[in-house]
């Protein structure tokens, strides 16, 4: 384990320590894995009220200039040019083989594209983006800004007291706010399956704003441990576990992220790294050999990442990439890659846990229903 003293600190570091957080190394930062309430209580509080997450380790960057959308679209299989003003979308940076370099969120703010990438990938992403499109638009990293997530059914009630008007945002839209002289950018989105917001703000204002949120009766701090159990129940991929440079969007069951306009026959079909392979996988002309699925265990035994999966007749058919006992689902849930023949919902498979077969069933995701506010 890295020495905690050698790690980077987010703008909330002192607040985490004051709140009694257990700090762990994550993406090069010292991050709170849980507070004294514990993972389980933090998980349930987010599903029932509102949880505040420090996600300042993630990478924020701006792409600006008249060609920014066209240029960014050349790196991803998604529709960037057609994204409406103030709208947010999920995107995927791909390599030449169609493997996923990172997954990200971006907003069309009119004057720029505001992009949020994974903390562990941010320096590599910046290098990649600058090398590929740095000549066509201005790429401005904002790695020093703070990023907070406020998630849960009561998030809107708490946030609108500080930022009147936040309630008028709908899922996957964003807007600028001012709070005590600081410029904030808020989107209604998140990584828990709940209604909620992500708030980008200057480092110097991050602690004061976090304290103001924690002073609201609905809000408690939530660490990375519950962030992981919440996102897994929501069926959302964790980069590095469920997707990486060896998985394509189609293998990862992320075909929904590829809009029609970029697919074969679309107006702007292809033209992104790995397009030949990804589009062939998408239309079935190059069948995939594995597919990401959700799994639910039929016994109360947690099934964790790297657990081998076998068919009911004993053949090795894949591997779990994320798995835990879902606190809200009330049963073990997992994401896994299996052969396409075993990827249909309802298929029985066995997970080999400590030499014993634990029966599982391929399940639709999310494991806990989403509660996004779509307006």
């Amino acid at each position: 384990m890295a020495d905690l003293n050698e790690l980077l600190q987010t703008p909330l570091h002192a607040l985490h320590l004051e709140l009694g957080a257990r700090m762990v190394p994550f993406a090069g930062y010292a991050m709170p894995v849980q507070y004294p309430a514990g993972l389980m209580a933090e998980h349930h509080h987010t599903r029932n009220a509102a949880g505040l997450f420090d996600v300042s380790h993630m990478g924020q960057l701006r792409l600006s200039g008249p060609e920014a959308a066209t240029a960014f679209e050349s790196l991803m299989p998604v529709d960037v040019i057609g994204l409406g003003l103030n709208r947010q979308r999920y995107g995927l940076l791909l390599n030449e083989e169609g493997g996923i370099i990172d997954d990200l969120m971006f907003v069309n703010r009119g004057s720029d594209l505001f992009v949020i990438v994974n903390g562990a990938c941010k320096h590599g992403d910046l290098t990649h983006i600058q090398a590929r499109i740095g000549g066509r638009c201005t790429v401005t990293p904002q790695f020093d800004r703070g990023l907070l997530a406020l998630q849960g059914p009561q998030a809107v009630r708490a946030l609108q007291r500080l930022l009147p008007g936040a309630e008028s945002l709908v899922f996957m839209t964003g807007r600028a706010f001012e709070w005590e002289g600081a410029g904030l950018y808020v989107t209604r989105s998140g990584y828990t399956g709940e209604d909620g917001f992500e708030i980008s703000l200057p480092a110097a204002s991050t602690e004061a704003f976090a304290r103001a949120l924690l002073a609201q009766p609905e809000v408690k701090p939530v660490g990375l441990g519950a962030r992981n159990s919440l996102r897994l129940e929501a069926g959302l991929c964790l980069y590095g576990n469920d997707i990486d440079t060896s998985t394509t969007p189609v293998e990862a069951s992320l075909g929904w992220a590829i809009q029609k306009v970029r697919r074969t026959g679309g107006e702007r079909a292809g033209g992104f790294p790995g397009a030949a392979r990804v589009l062939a996988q998408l239309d079935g002309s190059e069948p995939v050999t594995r597919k990401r699925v959700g799994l639910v265990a039929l016994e109360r035994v947690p099934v964790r990442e790297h657990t081998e999966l076998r068919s009911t007749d004993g053949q090795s058919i894949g591997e779990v990439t994320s798995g835990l006992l879902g606190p809200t689902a009330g049963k073990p849930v997992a994401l896994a890659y299996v052969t396409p023949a075993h990827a249909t919902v309802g298929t029985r498979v066995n997970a080999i846990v400590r030499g014993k077969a634990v029966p599982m069933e391929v399940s639709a995701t999310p494991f806990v229903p989403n509660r996004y506010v779509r307006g």
Partner: protein
Amino acid sequence: MTTKYTEDHEWIRVEGDTATVGITAHAQDALGDVVFVDLPEVGKTYAQKDVAGVVESVKAAADVYMPVSGEITEVNEALRDDPSLANSDPLGAGWFFKVKLSEPAQLDALLDASAYDDFAKNA
């Protein structure tokens, strides 16, 4: 009746030729909310340091080692049904299993309470 501790953060309470085994308060605190335990089979014999079970929180899984050699005489079925006993009462109702000692001399090398406290503080 004496209680000893291991560097694997387990306790072993000895009464005659049998002993009860569980995880320490420090261990349950480090793991967090325990959601699953896998207990050994009654009647099975294990050597010292063999993996005899598993304790899992949402976040992590840890092996439970045999602190001494012997035969399993009883396991805590109540813990299987309610793994949170390992958090709420780790040294009492949250016990894991009982073992009939085959080499009682192994106990001598285990830690006493104050030696374990020092060890856990620096862990």
